[in-house]
């Protein structure tokens, strides 16, 4: 089993084409859990981390959901493979950076459990599109199945005990990945982000904490984990996501109505650039692909082309470009490969027309 298998396998994010939605790219649930009586990974000795890894991995692989899944120990993976997993959102940058971490990933790549990240366990469920309820249900099942086997550190007063005070309580981070070109192009994104921030939601870039928003993609998640129940946290997030999606559609429709030919011109130029460029940086390709995705959503391009755009967004990330070639490449060589892959994929795209949505 290798990271290459994960890249090539049919999976939730690149193959659930029916689940694709114009604005919400994916929904994620994350639960932080720790084994009672053992130091957190950042403060434990190698033997203790090994004990945690042993116990957790043994319990995880016994669960039906991880049957024929992948067990990956970070120490055994090449740098490039670890980065691919980060770009796929299957493991965090923190887990990939350390040697003590491991991850168990379900065959369909919907569930990934990180072991020895900041906490002993980070249970993650990702669904393509907006599926908060079903993602939560799966996470809850995994939590219930693991709790009796592993014995989680829990206090009635503080809930699930975590290494960082920002995760204690429910240990729940519920988030959605949104594509918001309308709000960005119309200059309203800052205002929306401020509103979200004021009401306890964090807005981050494509790869989560500490990353810039490229391609107009934002991750919105709850900040607080203690003092509200899991259901309240989900309801609060869901209310805001619905609102932001509405704002995004309003912004798009206003742009399409007000800009007329300029709206089509933007999509046409993005398509022209992507179809002819010989060098494409990952930021430029993300930003241009974002405009193509908007064009598909708005009917300037056929909607069924959106899946190609989404695949290129994922496969255009630096480690993906290298993994797909099967060799390490420097940044210039990556830009050449990326441009070639994009040109090939967009070769038979039709010309952009006026919006119909």
């Amino acid at each position, binding site marked *: 089993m290798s990271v290459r298998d994960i890249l090539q396998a049919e999976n939730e994010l690149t193959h659930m084409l029916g689940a694709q939605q114009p604005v919400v790219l994916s929904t994620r649930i994350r639960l932080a859990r720790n084994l009672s009586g053992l130091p*957190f990974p*950042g403060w434990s000795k190698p033997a203790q981390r090994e004990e945690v890894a042993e116990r957790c991995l043994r319990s995880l692989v016994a669960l039906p959901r991880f049957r024929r899944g992948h067990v990956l120990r970070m120490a055994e993976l090449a740098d490039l493979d670890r980065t691919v997993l980060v770009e796929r959102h299957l493991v965090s940058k923190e887990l990939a950076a350390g040697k003590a971490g491991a991850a168990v990933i379900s065959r369909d790549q919907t569930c990934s459990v990180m072991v020895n990240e900041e906490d002993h366990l980070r249970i993650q469920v990702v669904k393509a599109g907006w599926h908060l309820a079903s993602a939560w249900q799966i996470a809850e099942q995994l939590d219930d199945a693991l709790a009796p086997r592993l014995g989680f550190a*829990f206090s009635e007063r503080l809930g*699930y005990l975590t290494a960082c*005070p920002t995760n204690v309580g429910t240990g729940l981070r519920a988030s959605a990945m949104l594509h918001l070109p309308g709000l960005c192009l119309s200059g309203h994104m800052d205002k929306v982000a401020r509103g979200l921030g004021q009401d306890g939601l964090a807005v981050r870039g494509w790869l989560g904490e500490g990353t810039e928003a490229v391609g107009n993609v934002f991750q919105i998640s709850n900040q607080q984990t203690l*003092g*509200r129940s899991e259901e309240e946290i989900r309801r609060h997030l869901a209310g805001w996501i619905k609102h932001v999606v509405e704002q995004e559609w309003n912004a798009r429709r206003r742009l399409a109505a007000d800009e007329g030919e300029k709206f089509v011109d933007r999509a046409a130029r993005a398509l022209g650039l992507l179809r002819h460029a010989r060098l494409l940086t990952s930021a430029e390709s993300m930003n241009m692909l974002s405009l193509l995705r908007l064009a598909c959503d708005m009917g300037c391009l056929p909607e069924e082309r959106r899946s190609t755009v989404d695949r290129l967004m994922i496969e255009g990330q630096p480690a993906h470009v290298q993994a797909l070639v099967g060799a390490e490449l420097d940044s210039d060589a990556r830009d050449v490969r990326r441009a070639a892959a994009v040109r090939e994929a967009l070769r038979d795209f039709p010309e952009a027309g006026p919006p119909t949505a």
Partner: protein
Amino acid sequence: MGDSSRCSICGQPATVDLTQIDAGKFTKVHLCDACAQKGGATDPSVFKLADALAAPSAPAAIVCPACGFTDVDFRKRGRLGCPACWTVFADALGGLLSKVQHDAAHQGRAPAGSSGAAGPARVRLESARRELEAAVKAEAFETAARLRDEILRLEAVVKSS
């Protein structure tokens, strides 16, 4: 926020620009490599926390008897050593939690097999007794008093079932 070419903390040449969105305000911080590493600047939520905690620099006064973690370690790292640290540092954490969280009391799920009436009370009683022991050892008397009350209440629940 100040000269963007200098670290906001130590004045060394800055290599990292961090933008935080906090309570609707955008704050830009410039950091040198060393301070960015120290503060965990790749993780904004942690950086804010480390920042808030960095102010008082007294010698270690509280040590977790379970894992040896001290209050100085916490100020440095912004993370705790082990689950028992939550009891040992309860008094110090109370103020922080009220700043970064909704409320200081957990609402929500409990581990499977532990919710219900007397069963969980018995389980909790055991852990509360252990926590009390750690709190007394660490001289966290406010916490110890709270735990003593909780233990009395739990003993009544267990007895009555």
